[in-house]
């Protein structure tokens, strides 16, 4: 292979892309040909020249690009720290408020409250056809409804408030 034909292989050899048999051929040729050795050096220098030719990255390059991307809806918007703080403070607060509301609403309305909604229906029961035993149970209903008035440890006392089976006739 003459100098003209082997120059393309030398080019690939310089780039590390020559096959092993080509590389052997090139090395043999370079050992005997000063012109091709010079050509090989020039090829290597040219590679250095292109590597040194670099564009500059302008400081606002990223900012401009991301603004264009956001305009085209190509970049998900970042949540602000405020948004995160709202998320992590308002949600637990709302949950706590809901729990508090539930607890408060589930408690018995105080006896001196003007509303009668939670009171036993004494008006309809007084003078009704309740037996004396029933009346006693109804009178004790307030105690049953108010857990604060009831000692949970003495659970057997539930039996005391359980109305006995009605006797018909």
């Amino acid at each position, binding site marked *: 292979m003459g100098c003209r034909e082997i120059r393309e292989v030398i080019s690939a050899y310089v*780039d590390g*892309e020559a096959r092993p048999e080509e590389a052997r051929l090139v090395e043999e040729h370079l050992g005997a040909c000063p012109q091709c050795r010079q050509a090989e050096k020039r090829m290597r220098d040219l590679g*250095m020249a*292109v590597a040194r030719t670099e564009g500059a*990255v302008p400081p606002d390059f990223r900012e401009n690009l991301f603004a264009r*991307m956001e305009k085209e809806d190509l970049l998900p918007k970042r949540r602000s720290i405020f948004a995160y703080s709202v998320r992590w403070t308002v949600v637990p607060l709302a949950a706590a408020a809901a729990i508090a509301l539930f607890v408060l609403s589930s408690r018995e309305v105080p006896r001196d409250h003007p509303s009668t909604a939670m009171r036993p229906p004494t008006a309809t029961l007084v003078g009704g056809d309740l037996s004396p035993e029933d009346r006693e149970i109804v009178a004790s209903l307030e105690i049953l409804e108010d857990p604060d008035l009831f000692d949970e440890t003495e659970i057997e006392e539930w039996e005391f408030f359980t109305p006995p089976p009605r006797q018909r006739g």
Partner: protein
Amino acid sequence: MKTDAELMALYQRGSRDAFEELFARHHRRVIHFCYRMTGDQARAEEAAQEVFLRIARAASTYQPTARFTTWVYTIARRTTLNFLRDEKEDGEKVPIDPTGEGRDAGNGIALPDSREWGPEQAAWGMQLQERFLEALQKLPEVNRAAFVLNRGEGLSYEEVATVLGVTVQAVKSRIFRAREALLAEISGLLE
């Protein structure tokens, strides 16, 4: 550390951080490639922005089987090619200094280490770079792209072949032709 393909998958699922990481990894090389291909800083910036917009727009079409870098350079090459075509249609051309034409490529080129350059050598180095950039623009686009992708961007012949859609043998020939033409253009400057 996540791979480019993993980051692309995350971006496809709506992760901004994933795209920012991909941008951080690749924006310099994209700008350098555009600069080497267009020969102009302003055009390189414009082209590089367009490259990233195209990457984002085409994210859903990216397949992890393709190496991300190869995919990016395929987009970058098409983008710069469109820019150059548009310029040609508009009648704009990259300025070429005619004094560089017809020089003898047979003279040797020696590029000393620029870190050791004095003021005169630094000025000469700047001139050399300008002339080199101009010489690059004189090359046929396919030869320039092959040479820049291999020597400037570090892609293998096989990867260059993938980006350009040609055979490895064609890449080998194009890089050789680019070298010969560049040496003919700038070696005279170094006499």
